[in-house]
């Protein structure tokens, strides 16, 4: 095993919480505020890990297992994602499917954790989560199937390593369609606007935040950290689809990380300039993602 393969997972584990800081600073800039420090998420995590916990009497061991499974899933998933020309630790044909299904496992346990409290708020959040994710999964996998055909590769490492300038002129439309579709999936999966509002104050309107209302202490820390890593990984996939490589490992990896940060800024811009959609309208935007992926597939099969 090559030692450089470790770089990506390490970067992911260390830098992921920074994304929330970047998004919040961007939003603050738009709102004319100073905003919280860039490293606020790290302080929050540090604080949470040093706190005790409060558990609801209604809950069972499932509630305690959920946050652990979530974090374990995203850490395992770091082994599957390549970035900046560096291959993933484990790459094999069809790993993209395992990647998507691992997030499915995480979601399964998040939803069960929410239902374990017996709270109707958390039930509502869970119900919305399963609905939206059922619609994002086909968009993601069909889009990546199109990329797989274009790059003649079946593993994420191959699919995301192929975007050079020659390829760009040849297959630009497919990349763009899939990237846009994956961007919508990215926003929905990470509970960002216009699907979910992470800063909302009303339990009735939340999706992800409401599912973790009853988690506290280290559990909440695990959940927050896992959310950050998940966002980093999906960003890396999106960046891998779009950003070409130069060949020099150092330049490539810095470009990739910079692109992930730019994506976070973009998320901040979207959140500052858009209102959250009515919940009933969210499926429509997810249908758009599915339509774009299907279109990309039609283009490559043509």
């Amino acid at each position, binding site marked *: 095993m090559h030692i450089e393969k470790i770089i990506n997972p390490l970067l992911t584990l260390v830098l992921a919480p920074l994304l929330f800081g970047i998004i919040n600073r961007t939003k603050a800039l738009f709102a004319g505020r100073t905003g919280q420090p860039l490293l606020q998420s790290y302080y929050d995590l540090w604080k949470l890990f040093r706190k005790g*916990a409060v558990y609801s009497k209604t809950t069972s061991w499932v509630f305690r297992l959920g946050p652990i*499974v979530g974090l374990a899933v995203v850490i395992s998933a770091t082994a599957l994602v390549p970035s900046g020309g560096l291959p993933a630790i484990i790459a094999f*044909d069809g790993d993209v*499917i395992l990647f998507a299904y691992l997030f499915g496992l995480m979601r399964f346990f998040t939803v069960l954790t929410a239902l374990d409290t017996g709270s109707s708020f958390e039930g509502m959040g869970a119900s919305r989560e*399963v*609905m939206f994710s059922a619609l994002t999964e086909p968009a993601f996998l069909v889009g990546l*199937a199109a990329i797989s*055909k274009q790059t003649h590769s079946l593993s994420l490492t191959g699919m995301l390593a192929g975007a050079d300038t020659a390829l760009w002129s040849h297959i630009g439309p497919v990349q763009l369609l899939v990237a846009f579709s994956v961007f919508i999936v990215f926003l929905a999966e990470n509970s960002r606007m216009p699907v979910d509002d992470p800063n909302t104050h009303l339990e009735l309107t939340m999706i992800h935040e409401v599912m973790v209302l009853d988690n506290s202490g280290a559990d909440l820390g695990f959940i927050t950290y896992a959310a950050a890593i998940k966002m980093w990984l999906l960003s890396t996939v999106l960046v891998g689809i779009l950003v070409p490589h130069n060949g020099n490992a150092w330049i490539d990896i810095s470009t990739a990380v910079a692109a992930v940060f730019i994506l976070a800024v973009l998320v901040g811009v979207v959140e500052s300039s858009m209102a959250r959609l009515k919940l009933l309208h969210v499926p429509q935007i997810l249908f758009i993602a599915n339509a774009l992926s299907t279109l990309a597939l039609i283009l490559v099969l043509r």
Partner: protein
Amino acid sequence: MSLLLWGLVIIFVGGLASLISGRRAGLASFFGAMGAVAGSITAVIPAFKVLLYGITESFRLNWSIPFGSFFIQIDPLSAVFLIPILCLSAVAAVYGVGYLWACRGKKNLGLAWFFYDLLLLGMVLVVVAKNGILFLLAWEIMSLAPFFLIIFDDEKEEARDAGWTYLVATHIGMVFLLVFFIILTGQNGSMDFDRIGVIDGGIASFLFVLAVVGFGTKAGFMPLHVWLPEAHPAAPSHVSAVMSGVMIKIGIYGLIRAITFLGHPPLWWAWILIVIGASSGVVGVLFALAQHDLKRLLAYHSVENIGIIALGLGIGVLGISTGLPALAVFGFAGCFFHIINHAIFKGLLFLGAGAVLHSSGTLEIDHLGGLIKRMPWTAVTFLVGAIAISGLPPLNGFASEFLIYLGVLKDGISHGLVNIIPVLGVIGGLALIGGLAAACFTKAFGIVFLGQPRSKHSQQAHEVSIAMLLPMVTLAILCVLLGVFSPLIIRVFGTAISNVTLLPQEVIQGQLNAGSSILSNVVIISVLLVILICGLALLRKWLLSGRGVEQTETWGCGYARPTARMQYTASSFAQPLVALFRFFLRTDSRNLPPKGIFPDRAFLQTDTADTSNKYLYRPLFKWISFMLSKLEWIQHGRLQLYVLYIALTLLMLLIWKAL
């Protein structure tokens, strides 16, 4: 081979002995279950031998029936089906002893066990029969025996209706099979499967359509599935487990066997199977989401899983048709593996549902809740089954769905717009099915086992007896093992795949080896996942040690006296998805919303009836019955005229013969 025959004899004798024991519950259960268990263990040995060492054995006895012969043989394809049939039936029989014990004295258990053993006997005979007449005979035994088990609770009207629906559906399917075999014999002059020459051209396509309808009725392809959601909930739970876990797969067996007779398949056969698979899968899981009854929900999931199996089969047939080996091998490997996996996790889930019914007295999901504290073991096993059926790693359900995906990714995405059918059908279809199945099983497990008891039914629940727990625990462990050892297991399908695809052994083994090394990467990630889970659990223990860990009420925006009735229900959980897909589901909903400052009475009632039953079969059968009522004047009850009819018919036949 003699072991298989001995197994069949043991099963039959066990059934007979329990029939004779009649209402003596202890004896009847002993003989019935012993027959099933001992017979299964005996018969499963040759099946494993065939699969592992490739030794095909056969046994032939001449029969006086025209075209008939008692010709049985275990070839690899039979063995793939034989193993889950025998294993699940044996495990379910043990469970049945505990489950039926509550009915002792009230019901004739001897009868129930006799038909259970007969069902098992019929299933085994169908998959080993190598003669058309014997096949149809065994098919009929297998089809009739469950009828008596479905109407086990014959004092209930729903059970009798369900039995009736089942009987009509299975015999409509049988009509197509009869025509299928008659034409097949007409082409060959023999009904022995080894003497059937390859049939080609238009007649083959016609036979294929007959097989899809005839066998598809048993398997539960949409829209031929209408009997499933009626029959499965009505039967005792261990019978539901066997029916849903293995009996419907025999429809798939029949279809695969039929395809081997029909020569080189044209492309459109594969497309039909893929379209059937994707639509059965998606619509099946949507209907499951809308259900309020736990066993009905599971029954619709059988339609969904048959859809996944049909997708695998379709990809396999596409591979044969286009000559692309990865498609053929991974399609069939996924299909076979999912058949075994579904037998295990669906069996497990039905047994779990039975345990819930047994201890709480209801299957109404919205009346349950909080069972994880009252039935801890049932809850753990049900959770394992729920993860497995949602196709999530690291359990067995993921491995088989993954193989089907892999086939399409490897060979399926080739140029030509027509390839959009397999790619969208499998990748889009499986992804959507997976997401919806996860929604459905978070609902089933979350509402039934988590939270607080929603009624006195779930308050009084208790853990079930060891005879019922042991089978569930066994099946749950199998779900884990089949996931962990999936790289080894898929190699075993090589001979069965060559049975069907006629590809050279080296090609198949080459593909399977590739698949096996890919799956071992999945296993590595799974192991990593488990290690991380353990590590993080220790980490949290360390982080929380010495700090305050308190217990309190669930957060309710400051409201301090929540009651169990304030919890989210299964209906509300599924409502957004049901509303989104109302085009397919057409849920009837009646409600009286609360009005005024001091609301009086309010209710909401939703019912998602099967659309194909409501809009297709009911009108059709109404029309048939209307047309037939015009012939009522012939049936007037005068015996002498009936005798005249017989005489006239005979006369006409004699004249026809003389001509």
